[in-house]
């Protein structure tokens, strides 16, 4: 269990994390979502005792990280930035960390095998690809067999097979009753892995809810209608609280009416329907909507494209 209470980090005038309070519960995968620069990594660094909060506090199993007597047995962590000496082999890296807790060499071999690095374990970590580096980070996180894992962008740089492996691993860890806290800027990835998400933007909490709930709240409940007689149907559907937009001659985007109501209206007028699709916002869109005002670095063109796409959907 991880509990943050008014967690704040300032760098000079800039507030990276602004009064965050949340609880990460065991037994499920909790996603930590936000655009780049939202303060996810800073928050994780404070959880792990690397950065000192400017205000507020964060505890792991009710203790401050720095007060843990055997931290590797309590919390396993994978940080986004590499945390490995490039000239040391993966095996020696793990062995050096294991030595701080008197963890045996056989456990080192075990985690190397677990992440699939056996063939390259004796090679310099500096020569590792991004994906191999992530696997080594995962091995480090699991070294002490901790009940809590904190992972910053664990699928970064992994190939599809690796991504799937991480996904299954995280679910497996949660199923064993562990607390799993994973950051990502990809909502779609979280949709597949996490049950619960904590969304931040510009260091502030935007949402702390289940993945299901986010989709439900953010979905625009629009219905896409395709008909050869779209103009006629449009007139018939008009009413208070109903908005109809159109991007193509035979396509309508209707909000304020259910698919059933639209279908019934069309049938009454004898209008043929070629498509009648309730639009469910994807998690990615929900995320975009939620964090639109909180994105730290807007790519100008990319931002416009997103808006256009959002309108079309």
């Amino acid at each position, binding site marked *: 269990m991880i509990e943050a209470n008014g967690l704040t980090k300032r760098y000079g005038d800039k507030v990276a994390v602004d009064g965050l309070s949340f609880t990460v519960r065991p037994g499920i995968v909790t996603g930590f979502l936000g655009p780049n620069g939202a303060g996810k990594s800073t928050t994780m660094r404070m959880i792990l005792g690397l950065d000192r909060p400017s205000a507020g506090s964060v505890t792991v199993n009710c203790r401050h990280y720095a007060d843990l007597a055997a931290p590797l047995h309590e919390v396993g962590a994978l940080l986004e930035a590499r945390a490995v*000496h490039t000239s040391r082999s993966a095996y020696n890296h793990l062995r050096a960390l294991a030595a701080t807790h008197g*963890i045996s060499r056989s*456990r080192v071999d*075990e985690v190397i095998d677990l992440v699939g690095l056996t063939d390259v374990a004796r090679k310099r970590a500096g020569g590792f690809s991004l994906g191999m580096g992530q696997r080594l980070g995962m091995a480090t996180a699991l070294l002490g067999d901790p009940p809590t894992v904190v992972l910053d962008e664990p699928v970064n740089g992994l190939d599809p097979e690796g991504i799937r*492996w991480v996904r299954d691993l995280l679910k*497996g860890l949660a199923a*064993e009753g562990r607390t799993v806290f994973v950051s990502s800027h990809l909502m779609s990835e979280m949709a597949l892995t996490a049950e619960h998400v904590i969304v931040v933007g510009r260091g502030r909490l935007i949402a702390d809810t289940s993945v299901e709930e986010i989709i439900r709240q953010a979905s625009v409940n629009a219905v896409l209608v395709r008909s050869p007689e779209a103009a006629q149907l449009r007139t018939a559907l008009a009413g208070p609280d109903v908005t109809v937009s159109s991007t193509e001659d035979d396509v309508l985007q209707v909000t304020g009416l259910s698919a059933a109501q639209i279908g019934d209206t069309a049938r009454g007028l004898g209008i043929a329907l070629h498509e009648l699709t309730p639009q469910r916002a994807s998690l990615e869109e929900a995320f975009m909507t939620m964090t639109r005002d909180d994105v730290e670095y807007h790519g100008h063109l990319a931002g416009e494209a997103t808006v256009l796409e959002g309108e079309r959907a």
Partner: protein
Amino acid sequence: MSAPTATLSHAPRRRVTPARAAKSEWIKLVSLRSSWITFAASVVAVIGLGLLISLVTKNHWAEMRPQERLRFDPVDRSLAGINLAQLAIGVLGVLVVTGEYSTGMIRSSLMAVPRRLPVLAGKAVVFAGATFVLMLASAFVAFLLGQQALGSHGTTLGAPHALRAVIGVSLYLTVIALFAIGIGFIIRNTAGGIATLFGLLLVAPGLGQLLPTSWQPHVLPYLPSNAGAAVYSVRTDPGMLSTWTGFAVLCAWALVALVVGAFLLRRRDA
């Protein structure tokens, strides 16, 4: 890649202790090739340079002027390699710390030992210990080979101050090792750390010569390399501190660097 579940190992769960932190630092030190290369360089410097200077001295004995012969001391000649060895030890000492900061390893180290000070203590004990043992052996070899090379101009360990000077080589380099570790934790950057260390050890004594003559006696003897020189020398320069006072001053420099480094390590974000 095996099944995507974390295997539960039922090994006992032990806590972090200073001894375990030191063991970890030992593994870190010996698992880097640069440590071996740099230690080898320091051994070659102490033994090889001492031997070379001793041989040259013997061959040029006939041409040496009387003042030169007066200044000559067989022990000091055979131990002259210390000047080069301190470069290797100093660089490695800084690197042991800054190498972790430049690669990000420090974050792994501090996550494993969140109290932080055992990391500094472990590094200090392990690196200083390795330096002491290695340099003690090297200094003895350098002394014996050097005296052989000097032939009739050589001396023995029984000569006044000879044994103290030989052990002094190791003591001096050990304290330089600690000084370098302290500076590493203060500066955290390799280039900056090395520049600071050798600025104080090698450049400061030269700059001190530019001070007004009346100030020099109050500054020059207290610079770390000047103060420490007495412990490995039979013949000391006039105006410098005595053997153990000088060594104590050098130790004070290292202690201050370690204490400031420890304070900053506790305080700063990693």
